[in-house]
């Protein structure tokens, strides 16, 4: 969820503070006011502030001094200097010291609105980039920690293709880290300051997917109560990541192909042509060549998205990496849950290395998270893993064996029913019926 932007207005004149506070509150910002530099610093330290509008001339600590001190306290805060005409030279000095901009009092409403909106967008972008960096640095070792030649090749390809604008198709089994690779491509590209927009195409019906991707105009269909910008439009100047591209219906494939060729789109129910400039990264766990051969996937669309392919190896083909990854996840989850767990018993590590990991890195991460929850000592034991459950005994009924297996697979998939259904090779409705039959509920 996006946090609201918080603005602090610092001015010794009450009527200036009040009128600006009224103006920006109507805009939907969270607004604080401070009558002096000292009060402003206390507010920044206490509540955090994203944008400061600072009067340059104040008794005591002036705007320039306040700017220096805020920089130490909140380096990411955006500072806009307010000045009377006579002190423009000082404002220019403030710019040299890192102020975002300055504005002369009284302000033109349009100018001040535009300036603060730009500053708010800059803040959102900084926050988004920081979240992306944190996510990548938290998850990268899971993908990259490796001594395997197959992963070394993946890293090399990533470094080569990321700075270009080429469309990339990422293939690999579920849980191998395809979305993370897409994130890395975006983060290493020239478009990293633009948006990274994700759409999972496998989960949506054709009409919904069309509307999600291309947007719609008000009244385009029943329930379209307002104009809606699609994911393609939102990815303008950034990267569009379409997961499960192999599940996209033929009609939407045609529409996407047209957008890719013309670099423009029309919203559903609209006539306006909207230019779009984005990089496309797609992913699938399906064999798209086989899908093309079977006539379920358009060949022209396949060629368009498969300009550069990165194939992620399944974890069973890089079992040497399992101990390193297991240690990484153990450290991550133990820290998150504030647990003192020093490592794995030799038997537990052997169980991890010997397990085939059909759910790949995601399943490994889930298994370690579960083990950290269950572990009461200081080392993880085999019994903490769902796959190390005792084998079914000869006197168990078939229904009991089925129930136990379903519970085990659901736990491994963190109760993601769609994923569990794929692992069990049954459809979701069947799995839901079986869960109902055995009284299995999501935690």
């Amino acid at each position: 969820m996006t946090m609201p932007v918080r603005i602090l207005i610092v001015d010794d004149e009450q009527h200036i503070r009040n009128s600006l506070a009224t103006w920006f509150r109507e805009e939907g910002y969270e607004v604080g006011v401070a009558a002096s530099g000292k009060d402003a610093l206390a507010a920044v330290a206490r509540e955090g502030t994203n944008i400061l509008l600072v009067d340059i001339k104040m008794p005591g600590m002036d705007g320039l001094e306040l700017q220096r001190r805020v920089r130490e306290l909140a380096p990411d805060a955006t500072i806009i200097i307010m000045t009377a005409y006579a002190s423009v030279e000082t404002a220019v000095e403030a710019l040299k010291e890192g102020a975002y901009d300055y504005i002369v009092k009284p302000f033109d409403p349009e100018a001040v609105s535009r300036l603060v909106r730009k500053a708010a967008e800059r803040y959102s972008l900084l926050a988004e980039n920081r979240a992306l960096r944190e996510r990548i640095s938290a998850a990268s070792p899971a993908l990259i920690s490796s001594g395997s030649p197959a992963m070394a090749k993946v890293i090399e390809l990533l470094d080569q293709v990321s700075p270009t604008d080429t469309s990339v198709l990422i293939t690999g089994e579920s849980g191998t880290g395809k979305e993370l690779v897409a994130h890395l491509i975006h983060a290493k590209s020239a478009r990293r300051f633009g948006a990274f927009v994700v759409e999972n195409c496998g989960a949506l019906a054709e009409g919904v997917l069309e509307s999600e991707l291309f947007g719609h105009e008000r009244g385009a269909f029943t329930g379209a109560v307002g104009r809606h910008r699609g994911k393609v439009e939102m990815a303008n100047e950034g990267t569009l990541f379409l997961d499960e591209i192999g599940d996209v219906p033929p009609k939407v494939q045609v529409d996407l192909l047209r957008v890719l060729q013309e670099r423009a789109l029309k919203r559903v129910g609209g006539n306006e042509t909207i230019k779009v400039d984005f990089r496309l990264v797609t992913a699938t766990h399906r064999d798209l060549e086989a899908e093309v051969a079977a006539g379920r996937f358009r060949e022209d669309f396949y060629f368009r998205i498969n300009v550069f392919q990165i194939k992620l190896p399944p974890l069973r083909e890089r079992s040497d990496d399992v101990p390193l990854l297991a240690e990484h996840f153990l450290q991550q989850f133990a820290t998150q849950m504030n647990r003192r767990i020093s490592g794995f018993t030799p038997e537990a590590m052997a169980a991890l290395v010997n397990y085939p990991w059909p759910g790949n890195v995601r399943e490994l991460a889930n298994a370690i998270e579960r083990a950290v929850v269950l572990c009461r000592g200081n080392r993880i034991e085999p019994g903490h893993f769902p796959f190390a459950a005792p084998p079914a005994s000869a006197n168990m009924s078939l229904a009991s064996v089925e129930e136990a297996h379903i519970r085990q697979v659901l736990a491994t998939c963190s109760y993601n029913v769609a994923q569990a259904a794929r692992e069990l090779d049954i459809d979701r409705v069947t799995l839901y019926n079986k869960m109902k039959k055995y009284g299995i509920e999501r935690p």
Partner: protein
Amino acid sequence: MNVRVLALGDVPPRLAEAVLGGLPRPYAGGEAGQLAVAFDRCYDRTRAQVDAACLIEQVATPEPGWAVVGLTGVDLFMPALTYVFGISHLGGRRGIVSWFRLHPEETGREAAEILLRRITTEAVHELGHSLGLVHCVVADCAMHRSLWPEGVDLKRPEYCPACLEAITWSL
């Protein structure tokens, strides 16, 4: 929610009646009237404008179940801003609209119709603020911010479904 539309000073009362007649949902009804105000108390000689924050203090908070919007032809400013089309107390059930800067370039009957529509739209806007709504991203919603007169024409004198729901819920 009932609305009292007040002509401030010597504004013709029929303008207040026309605006009242154009108010959308969720305003159930109300009355048009006139309020004597002392513009000179809020007049800034150096700027040759009227301080909006000062003027709104002359419009009393109405009784529960009512909101009030005042109409004036004087040029309004806020101390930090060169001009404003209106002002309101966020959630305070009172607001003011000025048409000083809303005049269209057209002339004759067409100009009068455009001006009335602009005043009504901005009255709906300020009433929305006075009931707690902030600005809306939907371009044709009355709560979208307009900074120039032609921008007001892109809006409709009513709320988008989300704003209508928010305002109805708050009542």
